[in-house]
C-alpha cells in the first residue's frame, strides 16, 4: 500500500527534516505515527498524502512509484486518500454538510446518491443538528469532527490523520477511533499521527516512532498482543 525507501526530505535549502526513512504499510493495516513535536510526523504525512514530493528516495503508493508517476495521474491517487489535517482546513464559506460532501463531489458523484450517507455520518459524529452551520460558528472539537467526516466519507483506501483526537473529549476521541477501526475493518489502511500514548497502547495496530527525523522503532502496540 505504502512503501518508503531511503526517503529524505528538506524544505528549500534548509536541513533535512526526514532522513533515510524506510518502511512498509501493508493494505488494511492500522498504524500510529508517534514522536515528539518537530520529529517529522507532519512532514511524513505530507509525503504520503502527496502534498509534497520527497527530496530523495523512493515512495510507492498503491503500487505506483511516485517518482515515475505521470503528473496527470496524481489527482486520482489523491482521491484515494482521506486526510484529517491538524488544522482541519475546512472551507469557511461552506456549511458542515457541504464540507463533508466535498470529496464526493470532486469524485463526480451525484448528490442524490450520497445525501443520506453525508447526513448519517454527520449525525454519527454528533453534528446532526449542525449540518447547515459554517465552520466559524463551530467549536474546535466540532470542526475536527467535520474534518474527520470529510476524510472518511468517500471510504478512502488510505486514511491519514494528524492528531485527530486532539480537540475532542476522551469519550468522543474513543468514538472516533472506533470509526477509524470500523473503516479499517472494511479495508481502509489507517495511519494516525498522535502524541496520545494511551490511545496507541489501547488500540490494536502498529507504531512507527520518529526521533529527530529518523525512524527509530516499528513495533506492535500493546493491545495487538492481547
Amino acid at each position: 500500500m505504502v512503501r518508503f525507501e531511503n526517503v529524505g526530505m528538506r524544505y528549500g535549502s534548509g536541513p533535512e527534516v526526514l532522513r533515510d526513512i524506510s518502511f512498509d504499510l501493508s493494505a488494511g493495516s492500522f498504524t500510529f505515527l508517534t514522536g515528539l513535536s518537530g520529529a517529522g510526523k507532519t512532514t511524513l504525512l505530507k509525503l504520503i498524502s502527496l502534498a509534497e514530493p520527497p527530496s530523495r528516495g523512493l515512495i510507492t503508493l498503491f503500487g505506483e512509484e511516485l517518482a515515475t508517476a505521470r503528473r496527470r495521474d496524481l489527482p486520482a491517487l489523491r482521491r484515494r486518500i482521506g486526510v484529517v489535517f491538524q488544522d482541519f482546513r475546512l472551507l469557511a464559506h461552506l456549511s458542515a454538510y457541504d464540507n463533508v460532501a466535498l470529496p464526493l463531489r470532486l469524485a463526480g458523484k451525484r448528490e442524490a446518491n450520497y445525501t443520506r450517507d453525508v447526513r448519517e455520518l454527520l449525525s454519527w459524529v454528533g453534528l446532526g443538528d449542525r449540518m447547515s452551520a459554517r465552520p466559524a460558528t463551530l467549536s474546535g472539537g466540532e470542526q475536527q469532527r467535520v474534518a474527520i467526516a470529510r476524510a472518511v466519507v468517500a471510504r478512502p483506501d488510505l486514511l491519514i490523520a494528524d492528531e485527530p483526537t486532539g480537540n475532542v473529549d476522551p469519550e468522543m476521541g474513543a468514538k472516533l477511533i472506533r470509526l477509524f477501526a470500523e473503516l479499517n475493518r472494511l479495508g481502509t489502511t489507517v495511519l494516525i499521527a498522535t502524541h496520545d500514548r494511551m490511545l496507541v497502547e489501547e488500540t490494536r495496530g502498529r507504531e512507527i516512532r520518529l526521533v529527530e527525523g529518523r525512524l527509530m522503532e516499528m513495533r506492535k502496540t500493546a493491545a495487538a498482543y492481547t
Partner: protein
Amino acid sequence: MSENGQKDERLSASHIMPREKGAAPLDFVIAVMALLAALALGSSLIASRAAEGWSQGLSDHVTVQVLPPESGDAAAGLAKESAAALGVLNATPGIAHARLLSDAEIEKLVEPWIGNSGVVAGIPLPRLIDATIAPGEGVDSGALTARLKAAAPDAVLDDHRRWIARLEGLADTVRYAAYGILLLIAGATAAVVTLATRAGLDAHHEMVALLHQMGARAGFIAHNIERHYFLSALAAAAAGTAIAALLFQGLAGLEFVGVEAVPFLPPLSLSLSELPWLVAVPAVISLISWATARISVLSVVRAIY
C-alpha cells in the same frame, strides 16, 4: 435550496469557489473598457459607412467647370464653351445625363462664402456642368479631358478622384486608429484580469491548495474560477456597451431634432443594422477574461506539487 434547507453557496459541481468579495472595482474597470471599445468600434463603423457614402456619391458624378475666357465677351464665351462642353459630355459613352447648373444654383453654391447680397450678379462666375455616370459604367477621364479641351479650351474636368482618395484616406485613418484602440483595450483587459485573478488566488490560496490536495484536477479548479470571471466580465462589459449604444442613439436623437454634431460629417449615430456589431464587445471581453483567468489559474495550480 440545499439539502439541509439552506439557500446558500450549495456546491453544484461548478460552484465551489466563493463569490469574490471586493470585485466591484474590477467590474467597473471592465465596464469602462467595454464602453471605450464600443465607442471605438462604433467610430470605425461610422467611418466605414461615411467613406463608402462619400466614395459612392462622388464617383457617380463628374463635374465640368467652364471658366470665363480671359479676353472678349465673357458671357458669350461662357455660353458658347458651356454648350460645346455639354455637347461633348452628352456624346460620351457612359455618361447618362449632363446638366448645366442654372445661375441660381451657382449663386447658392457660393453663398456660404460671399453671401446673397447680389454682389455675384456683377462677377463672371464659371459655369458648372454636372454629369451623372450611368450605373456600372465608367468614363475614361484622359480621353474626355482631351475632347473637352478641343471643344471648349476653358473647360476643366473634375472627376473627384483627388477628393475620394483623401476622404478614403481619412476614413482609413479613423478605422485603423479604432482597431489600434480595440487592440490596446483587449491587452489592458487581459492585464487587469490577470492581476485580479492573481490577487483572488492569493486570497484563496488555502482553498485552492486544499481542493488540489483532495484530488481536484487543475482544470476543475480553473473551471470554477474562470466561470466566475467570465460571468462577471460579461455583465460588466454588457453594461459598458449598453451605455455606449445609448450614447450613439443619443447622438441620433440630437440629429433628429436638428442639432448637427459635427458639420460636414455624416451622422455620428449607429444605424439599427450596425448596432448588433456592438454585441461583439461584451462577447470578446468576457472571452478574454475567461481565457486570462484560466491561464493564470492553471499556471498557479500546476506550480503546486
